[in-house]
């Protein structure tokens, strides 16, 4: 592994996005717009205050999953990964480079979304801004890792996009956003227990209702991070020097 090659990969990924202002605009504008729309959907501050922080644990993951799976798939299909794998480049350099670049992007996304949510929309998060940002960035890191892993199973960008409803939506349905998990059928509760998004949403719930950084918040973040690292390791296994 070479930190310089890892950072060069991160810089390259960010440069690619820099040349694509439309994608950047969608990444940074869509989450705060949707959160704002949601405020007027609910017309009930208590319900909105409960749900809005959870969305900060969901949006970064979903968007980074999508963007990473497509970006990595492009590497696999346009020949750049083929070329890189014949060079003195570690697979870890490649994967971590992506993870760092998208985490930076996620931080900016989370800063904007949290700024709108906490500032303009006056949502109360007892835990404060810093834990909110940490939770959002970790969620994005998770999305990036899962996207890197899943891209190995898609042969086309069309398939990669279809992995979102197949892979992310089930997690979204049982994570406790729509119905409290203890009110769901036992099977769904078990599923929720093994899905990483559940812990990301739980972490956001935790900081909404506690003024301090709690042990449970740390545990949820640790689970999200563990899933993200596991997905990165699995992702690195899907990148092969020899086929």
């Amino acid at each position, binding site marked *: 592994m070479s930190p310089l090659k890892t950072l060069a990969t991160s810089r390259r990924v960010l440069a690619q996005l820099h*040349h694509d202002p439309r994608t950047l605009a969608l990444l940074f504008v869509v989450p705060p717009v949707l959160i704002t729309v949601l405020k007027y959907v609910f017309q009930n501050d208590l319900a909105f205050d409960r749900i809005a922080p959870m969305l900060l644990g969901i949006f970064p993951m979903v968007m980074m999953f999508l963007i990473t799976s497509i970006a990595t798939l492009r590497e696999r299909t346009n*020949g*750049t990964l083929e*070329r*890189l794998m014949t060079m003195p480049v570690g697979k870890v350099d490649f994967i971590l480079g992506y993870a760092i670049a998208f985490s930076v992007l996620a931080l900016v996304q989370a800063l904007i979304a949290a700024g709108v949510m906490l500032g303009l929309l006056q949502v109360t998060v007892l835990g404060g801004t810093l834990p909110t940002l940490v939770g959002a960035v970790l969620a994005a890191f998770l999305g990036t890792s899962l996207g890197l892993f899943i891209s190995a199973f898609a042969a086309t960008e069309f398939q990669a996009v279809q992995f979102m409803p197949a892979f992310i939506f089930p997690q979204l349905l049982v994570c406790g956003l729509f119905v409290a998990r203890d009110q769901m059928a036992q099977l769904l509760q078990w599923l929720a227990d093994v899905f990483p998004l559940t812990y990301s949403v739980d972490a956001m719930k935790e900081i909404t209702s506690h003024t301090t950084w709690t042990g449970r918040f740390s545990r949820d973040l640790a689970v999200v991070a563990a899933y993200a690292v596991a997905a990165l390791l699995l992702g690195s296994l899907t990148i092969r020097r020899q086929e």
Partner: protein
Amino acid sequence: METAVAVKNLSVIYKNGFKALNGVSLELPAGKITGFIGPSGAGKTTLIRVLVGRQKIAGGTAAVLGSPAGSAKLRGQFSYMTQNLSVYPDLTVTENLNYFARMLGLRGTAVKTAVNGAVRLVDLGPQTEQVVGSLSGGQKQRVSLAVALLGDAPLLFLDEPTVGLDPVLREQLWKLFRELVGKGKTIIITSHVMDEADRCDDLVLIRGGKVLAHASPHELCAQTHSQTVEEGFIKLVEGQK
């Protein structure tokens, strides 16, 4: 004569059972342009992918510069231009070259020197700040070739580098290949265009995963009593039937 590549009884079988290479044995000389010539699907790209370490082999051996193909110590010892463009279309020419130079382990001024050198060799000076996706097909091809020229590797694998290029550009690239060989490099190139065969020092005619002939263009024409390599290739194929 020094050997750049040695392949013995090499076989490659794809997951679907297709035998892409079948008992190929070759010794390719260093310091020359060797052409893998044959129709599409003959096994040329598979053979190159074995040599650069990307393709698993089912049997036999393949050695590059004295080491087993795919071994870690070979990385950086050769350059590989794939049949796809294998550059980032959403980055400028300079950004692409800077990135790949860093991936080769170059740092600081060495990056700039390597990038400037590669740009000069492929004559892309005016396009350096253009996004690759906005360039013409021939210019994109030259960006991909420039990446392969970055690390000053002694051995270059170029998979169909001239496909789809206009005659003037093809002529320029062949002139460049000849210059590179003049500086001591070894080039292994694939082409399905028979008239490019005459430009190689050494030819490997491939069809159906097997080597039909391995000789210089002159020797091949003499052996098959043909005026051109294409005519010789056809005679060899007919003789095989």
